[in-house]
């Protein structure tokens, strides 16, 4: 056993259902930790434990008549490949073929619900032990039942591909489960050794691949309900605008309008089509108050280091003292802009509110929070609200808060029919929960031998975790610093004798929140650009330079391994060959070290990334092909964010409001080669989806310096280079 809690025998129960034979429902797997412990655990390990809910009954598995197993996943699928990894984990312990498993989103009324979220690159690692234990327990239940049905000794039975067989008989799992009303539940069985797994660790195809290639209607925006109407809600384009009232007389007369709904906090239209709803919405005259006529420069001023509240988040030795006197002091400042999620599927929901219950179909990363907020708004018991999660057309943190679901529900209640209500793209860009802008000051002193004697990182950022419904208010005084903002902001070079990191918290006047990898992208950009500056000052090869600053413990060893692996694989050379330079950077995120080398050219002032080599150690890769896919995607998304993307604030409005003007990497900007090397430094899975986003910005900037002599200390890099030329 792995030392984790065992599945309580009392908590298993079996129900029959329509179209299913056996439904294996499991109650509380892990009890809810006291909030403080939860937070402390997050701080200590930057890992999120699985936070299952306590409602009963909770369905994990169903066996269907055609001898397939349906797995109800508490984690949502937003592209990260979690469904596939979970299928592999369950199939291996259940002794079924991977094609016999069907993963679906757990509904809140009957499925298991993670009271935290899907995010933070923790889905696979959090379920690694519990899911396999549940699957193994179910397998043994089937074995025991089969033994009694077949009148054989339990130990003589073999289970494989969903079939139980003895020397001369065999039964499918479905046959075994048929008619069983009471099951014998064994103690949690031992998990198989890694070497015996058929699917775990193998690059099998995504379980949702075919649906996605044939355009199956699986996303929130594809959801429909019988007799459904369309809603549209007015949203202000101005920062700080608060709704105070609306004149709806013109809008009421627009074609197709069923009802205009004026609430205390918003106004919306319900009509017979989406277009009618949007047209009527444009005729509503809204009164707002509290708009703030801010501009980008005002925001930049607000987040300057020194303006917010400082929290020391890391302190070894006494860097502050050493860096106080100016002799031989090296100082650099870095900036990152406001970033938009720009996920392809806008936020929205289909809601049906009836007299004493509500059903919501939605792309959400926070099933439990979505449910609880709707229950509260509608004054319904939580168990009367059923959230049916759909596939997400991109998450990236955008769907960690879903007020749009409340609006759809309120509109539905008003017309007593199902209502579908989505954001327009302009609203997405202006009412996003943005990646906060950041400012960094880095200071260091080098010894004569080129070792860093002392180093300090000051990062100032808008909120990430704080202010989010996922982070209870009581967490703020306990934590002080925003753990999302400082993600990636700690100094990972433990052999430096004196180092500290200080996180400055700034509350911005617009919503800032989780964006894939949180502070990692900006913090790594700053720290790893600075490390490159120091290496150049010291006159030491940048890869060598980093290796000498790393401590000798387990963490340090894994970090050194990825650095060596990436340099080796890319054939790293710190010189310009055929007009191309290699830029190097490395980060550690959620215990996953990741190093990247970008091969870059600058022709006519245009930054072009030709190839990227990446070495990452996420521990055990449950599906190495999908881990690589995550690296490829994160590298290009990180390239996009660091080279091109930037939201501006103009006269109180966030702009631009459309793809194109919001510059992003397209096909032509994507590296022609992305070579990913996976190391396995642990025998359990770690974080995958976000860590590879860290190093790319700094890697590109470091290469650009070699090519142009220009140090780009502000993202987006292309705009910065244009400015300097």
């Amino acid at each position: 056993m792995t030392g984790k809690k065992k599945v309580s025998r009392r908590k298993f129960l079996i129900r029959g259902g329509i179209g299913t034979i056996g439904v294996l429902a499991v109650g509380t797997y892990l009890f809810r930790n006291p909030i403080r412990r939860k937070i402390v655990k997050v701080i200590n390990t930057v890992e999120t434990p699985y936070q299952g809910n306590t409602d009963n009954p909770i369905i994990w598995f169903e066996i269907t008549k055609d001898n397939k197993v349906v797995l109800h996943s508490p984690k949502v699928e937003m592209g990260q490949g979690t469904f596939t990894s979970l299928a592999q984990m369950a199939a291996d312990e259940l002794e079924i073929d991977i094609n016999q498993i069907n993963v679906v989103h757990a509904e809140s009324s009957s499925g298991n619900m993670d009271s935290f979220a899907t995010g933070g690159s923790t889905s696979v690692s959090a379920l690694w032990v519990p899911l396999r234990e549940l699957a193994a327990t179910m397998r043994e239940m089937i074995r025991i039942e089969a033994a009694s049905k077949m009148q054989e000794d339990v130990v003589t039975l073999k289970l494989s591909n969903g079939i139980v067989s003895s020397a001369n008989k065999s039964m499918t799992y479905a046959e075994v489960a048929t008619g069983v009303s009471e099951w014998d539940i064994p103690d949690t069985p031992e998990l198989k050794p890694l070497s015996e797994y058929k699917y775990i660790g193998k690059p099998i195809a995504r379980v949702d691949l075919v649906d996605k290639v044939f355009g199956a209607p699986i996303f929130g925006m594809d959801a429909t309900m019988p007799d459904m109407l369309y809603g549209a809600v007015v949203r202000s384009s101005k920062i700080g605008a608060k709704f105070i009232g609306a004149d709806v007389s013109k809008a009421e007369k627009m074609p197709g309008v069923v009802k205009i709904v004026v609430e205390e906090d918003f106004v919306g239209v319900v009509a017979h089509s989406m277009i009618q709803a949007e047209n009527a919405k444009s005729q509503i005259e809204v009164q707002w108050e509290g708009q703030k006529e801010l501009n980008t420069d005002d925001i930049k001023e607000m987040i300057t280091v020194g303006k917010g509240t400082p929290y020391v988040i890391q302190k070894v030795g006494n860097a502050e003292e050493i860096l106080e006197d100016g002799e031989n002091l090296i100082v650099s400042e870095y900036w990152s802009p406001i970033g938009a999620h720009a996920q392809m599927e806008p936020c929205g929901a289909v809601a049906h509110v009836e007299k004493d219950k509500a059903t919501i179909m939605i792309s959400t990363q926070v099933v439990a929070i979505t449910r609880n907020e709707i229950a509260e708004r509608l004054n319904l018991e939580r168990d009367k609200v059923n959230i049916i999660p759909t596939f997400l057309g991109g998450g990236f943190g955008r769907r960690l808060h879903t007020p749009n679901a409340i609006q759809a529900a309120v509109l539905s209640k008003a017309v007593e029919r199902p209502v579908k209500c989505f954001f327009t793209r302009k609203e997405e860009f202006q009412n996003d929960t943005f990646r906060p802008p950041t400012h960094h000051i880095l200071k260091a002193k080098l010894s004569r031998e080129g070792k860093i004697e002392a180093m300090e990182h000051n990062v100032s950022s808008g909120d990430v975790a704080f202010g989010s419904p996922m982070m209870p208010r009581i967490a703020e005084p306990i934590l002080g610093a925003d753990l999302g903002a400082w993600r990636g902001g700690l100094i990972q070079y433990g052999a430096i004798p004196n180092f500290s990191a200080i996180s400055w918290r700034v509350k911005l006047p617009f919503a800032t929140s989780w964006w894939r990898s949180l502070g990692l992208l900006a913090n790594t950009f700053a720290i790893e650009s600075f490390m490159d500056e120091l290496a150049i000052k010291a006159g030491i090869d940048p890869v060598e330079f980093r290796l000498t600053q790393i401590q000798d413990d387990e963490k340090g060893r894994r970090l050194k391994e990825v650095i060596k692996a990436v340099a080796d694989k890319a054939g790293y050379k710190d010189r310009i060959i055929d007009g191309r330079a290699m830029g190097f950077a490395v980060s550690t995120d959620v215990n996953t070290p990741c190093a990247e080398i970008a091969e870059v050219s600058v022709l006519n002032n245009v930054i072009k990334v030709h190839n990227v080599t990446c070495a990452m150690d996420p521990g055990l890769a449950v599906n190495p092909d999908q881990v690589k896919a995550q690296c490829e995607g994160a590298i290009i998304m990180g390239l996009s964010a660091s080279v091109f993307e930037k939201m501006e604030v103009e006269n109180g409005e966030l702009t631009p409001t459309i793809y194109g003007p919001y510059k992003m990497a397209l096909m032509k900007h994507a590296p022609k080669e992305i070579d990913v090397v996976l190391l396995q430094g642990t025998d359990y899975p770690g974080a995958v989806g976000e860590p590879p986003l860290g190093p790319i910005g700094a890697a590109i900037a470091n290469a650009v310096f070699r090519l142009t002599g220009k140090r780009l200390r502000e993202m987006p890099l292309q705009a910065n280079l244009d400015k300097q030329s």
Partner: protein
Amino acid sequence: MEISLKVNGELYPIEVDPETPLLWVIRDVLDLKGTKFGCGKAACGACTLLVDGNSVRSCSFAVKFAEGKEVTTIEGLGTKENPHPVQQAWIEEVVPQCGYCQPGFMMATVALLKNIPNPTDDDIDRNIINVCRCATYYRMRKAIHRASELSQQETDKRVENNKV
């Protein structure tokens, strides 16, 4: 106004404002949800489908212009038993992540291969200009080359069969 629309080989008489973007007719009237909404302003390509074999951003294309023409959506491209070469290539390269943008990219690829059966990387860069936020571009490029190969093989086979 009544318009008769031919989608994936089937004729649909529909009662609709002729200025309605084709996308909404496809999605909300015909209930074919594979063609996606991303921006509504011809800026992302999520809504790409084929009109007489040419790629069109259907969010910004009035339904009246599709009258009398052949509209093809992702649902009409291939079947699971007999996938279109582009879909086959997408499966082989395991392209999709969230998957939302993928129908648009596949339709744009079909149109590209019709005009340029054997595209170079430059051809791909110039013609495939949709947005994928999961940034699956690396595998898409491989899949486009693979689709070109598969289409070529299919054509060769057809030529072979005709000889017999």
